[in-house]
């Protein structure tokens, strides 16, 4: 009775749709066209020639195996951790869980800087070892090696696997394992025949996500890998920004787009199938206390590993940002306020902070408005029974997730630099790019909570005399307010840390923080290095504080109610 009319629904959706068409599909189509029609004429032979060059194959191969290796290492390290989190209670678990969110929100550039601060040739560990053992050369030589960025990939994805698999594991009804024991299965048989098969959807889905993230890894590889290594993303950047070989960049982007779509499609299929209802309601009541010495050692080792992996790079970053040649110093922070760094910046570096925050606020506003409109459209489509059309549009909205930011940035510089849409010199380009990246996340935050509202609630409100607008304002909005807030914080953080697209579209006068950090890291000299550390520390503080504040807010939807169950 009180559902939006079809026309009105499409009106709601028109804004996100137009946004996607102009700022997503248009640049993407342009990339494809540039691949096939390099000089405006149909010339697939040239594309074939590009693809057949040994560099092309080598880059694709390198991108694949480093992603595969990162995935395998991460899984091996994270699965025991997932078990510990799923099945045991221990001191400091909540704190550690909060710490787990840090890598998730940490910008790639900051991570790269943090690992340089810890293990780089100029890093804390090397400096310390050189002083203690009186060495003339840094003993740990990870700079510009594969191992260095693999380590950073593990840092990033360890918590991802731990959260997905651990959460799934905790949700498995422990009676299933007990049933197997009662039927005569030993602990090992129980794990192999029952637990592992049941965990496979979660393991597969998280492994695929890790692979996707590592496949599209950009900032970490660019900064830690050095010129010797290039993933597809890095090569697209080099070909377009440094070598101005746009057809080659387009050809690389094409393969990137195809592979990403394929992987995301696989992931969607996998997570669709893993939604079998064998979660027990009391996921929290199933953990046990640590009892035997074996358990203690196993859990202790895992927790120690987590703390070292997650904390030491971040601590090293902060420490390194306040340590100069003569000990404690704030010189790097102060230097951010001076315009002496004329060689890299035309303005004082600290203005990057203001730029980033401004861009992030704009991107957040755009993403939340678009996300709210799109979620309302999708949620009402399902109520109307047209669930197949709803999942089609859902997939369309998720497409930007399956597109690397670098591809997007590249698409922008080849499309939005001339009429009809000349935004090359407009400040709007950065927030638009960021909003596009953040938009699917916002929808993923809002949509589930909107769909959990039973239609009867709205019907009850309208029978009590509420107009459709009032129903929306006083029923829907209060219930999803927290989800909107979470989406907004996500959008803000994504924008603050976004580097791939920014590397293409930021103008030199208005750098964002990640771009500034990248520029600092690319320059020689201790002052530049120190300023990179200082800027990274500030960026880390800003992105983490948003999520910290979010965690402090009470969740109003956690009160028992009918919409928890559905």
């Amino acid at each position, binding site marked *: 009775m009180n559902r939006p009319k079809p026309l009105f629904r499409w009106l709601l959706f028109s804004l996100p749709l137009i946004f996607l068409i102009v700022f997503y599909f248009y640049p993407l189509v342009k990339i494809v066209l540039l691949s096939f029609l390099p000089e405006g004429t149909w010339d697939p032979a040239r594309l074939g020639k590009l693809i057949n060059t040994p560099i092309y194959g080598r880059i694709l191969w390198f991108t694949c195996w480093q992603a595969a290796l990162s995935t395998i290492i991460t899984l091996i390290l994270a699965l025991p951790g997932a078990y510990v989190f799923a099945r045991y209670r221990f001191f400091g678990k909540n704190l550690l869980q909060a710490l787990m969110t840090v890598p998730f929100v940490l910008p790639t550039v900051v991570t790269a800087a943090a690992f340089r601060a810890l293990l780089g040739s100029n890093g804390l560990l090397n400096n310390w070892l050189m002083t203690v053992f009186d060495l003339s050369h840094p003993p740990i030589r990870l700079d510009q090696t594969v191992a260095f960025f693999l380590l950073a990939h593990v840092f990033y994805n360890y918590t991802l696997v731990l959260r997905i698999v651990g959460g799934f594991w905790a949700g498995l009804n422990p009676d*299933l394992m007990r*049933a197997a*024991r009662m*039927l005569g299965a030993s602990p090992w048989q129980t794990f192999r025949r029952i637990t592992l098969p049941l965990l496979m959807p979660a393991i597969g889905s998280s492994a695929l996500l890790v692979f996707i993230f590592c496949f599209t890894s950009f900032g970490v590889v660019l900064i830690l890998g050095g010129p010797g290594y290039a993933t597809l993303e890095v090569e697209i950047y080099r070909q377009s920004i440094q070598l101005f070989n746009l057809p080659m960049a387009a050809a690389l982007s094409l393969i990137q787009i195809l592979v990403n779509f394929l992987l995301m499609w696989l992931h969607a299929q996998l997570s669709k199938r893993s939604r079998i209802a*064998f979660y*027990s309601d009391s996921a929290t009541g199933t953990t046990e206390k640590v009892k035997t010495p074996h358990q203690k050692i196993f859990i202790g080792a895992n927790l120690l590993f987590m703390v070292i992996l997650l904390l030491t790079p971040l601590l090293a970053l902060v420490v390194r940002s306040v340590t100069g040649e003569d000990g404690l110093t704030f010189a790097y922070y102060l230097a951010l306020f001076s315009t002496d760094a004329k060689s890299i910046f035309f303005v004082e570096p600290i203005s990057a902070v203001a730029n980033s925050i401004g861009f992030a606020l704009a991107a957040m506003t755009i993403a939340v408005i678009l996300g709210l409109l799109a979620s309302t459209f999708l949620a009402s489509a399902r109520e109307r029974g047209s669930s197949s059309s709803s999942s089609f549009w859902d997939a369309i909205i998720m497409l930007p997730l399956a597109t690397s930011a670098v591809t997007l940035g590249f698409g922008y510089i080849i499309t939005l630099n001339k009429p009809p849409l000349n935004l090359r010199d407009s400040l709007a380009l950065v927030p638009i790019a960021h909003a596009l990246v953040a938009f699917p996340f916002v929808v993923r935050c809002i949509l589930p909570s909107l769909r959990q509202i039973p239609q009867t609630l709205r019907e009850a409100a309208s029978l009590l005399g509420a107009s459709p607008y009032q129903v929306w304002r006083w029923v829907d909005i209060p219930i999803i307010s927290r989800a909107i807030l979470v989406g907004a914080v996500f959008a803000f953080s994504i924008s603050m840390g976004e580097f791939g697209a920014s590397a293409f579209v930021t103008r030199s006068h208005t750098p964002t923080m990640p771009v500034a950090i990248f520029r600092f890291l690319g320059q020689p000299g201790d002052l530049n290095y120190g300023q990179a550390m200082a800027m990274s520390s500030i960026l880390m503080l800003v992105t983490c504080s948003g999520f910290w504040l979010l965690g402090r807010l009470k969740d109003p939807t956690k009160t028992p109610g009918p919409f928890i169950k559905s």
Partner: protein
Amino acid sequence: MSDNRNILEVDRLSNHYEGKPLLQDISFSLKQGEILCLLGPSGSGKTTLLRLLAGLEKEEAGTIRFCGKDVRNIPPHKRNFGMMFQEYALFPHKTLQQNVAFGLEMQHCQREELTKRVKTVLEMVGLSGLENRKIDELSGGERQRVALARSLAPEPQLLLLDEPLGSLDRALRDRLTGEIRTILKSLAVTAVFVTHDQAEAFSIADKVAVLHHGILQQFDTPENLYRNPANTTVARFLGFRNLIEGTINEDGMFFSPLGILPIPIKARGEHVLRETATLLIRPEGATIDYSSLTENDPLRLSGKITELRFQGSTYRLSLQIAEALLTFDLPIDPPPPGIGRSIHLLLNPSALVLI
């Protein structure tokens, strides 16, 4: 019940959880082929007791002997006990057939033998023909049968059932209770059955153990339990509301707000006389007394009807006598007078129990 030896002996079993006692000094024994019901409200420790028997949890004090052997250090998968879980815990990644076969596979049963055995068990629970169904394609009642079949397939020496009918609707529950008893009896399996439902316990069990706050209140046959509840806790849990406190003298006269009632010898139990005691009047043990001839009958109660509800086979009636409020289930003929009216009831001597 050919074998008269005790097959399961539980002796002074105690268990704590985070400082709170879950079970205190539980002792009982069970004979081959008997079905025991652990009856108690939630939090009474009945599930903990079952899990201790299964070996899924460790006892802190006391012993569990099975066939004369201490089972404390035998891990659950080597006990050869079967267990049926509350929500069945059927493996969602296996078919019905694979679920039932799992225990046999663990025993390294030959393929041929295994297939035969699975077939037999499925026939027994009435699930033949559904072998290749997935678990999520089964109804609640079917799942319950699969769970029973799965726990019976490896021929366990002891079958443990944890509220196996808890999530089913009433009608299905009543039917399955009977079926389970028939199946268990035909196989002569010794079984321990956990439930909070008194009717279910009575219709399935040979022996009932009432647990409350981790203490074994009474261990008896269903009939004895109903006829002679050991204490007010058991009586209340069985649903008895007419519990009147008073004192009794050596002549068997019970003094209470209801007046003086003579207690039949049989109902006096082992109570030391002149002691404060509680009198239980079972609700079905009264009839309306219209005649004036029995005015001097000592087992006559008079009071005012405060509530009257038609229940189908009986009338439920609340009667105000002095300060006490008693509840009775009266036959529908003759119909009692309306609310607010006075009424005389004649008590059946067997409806009185002193506890």
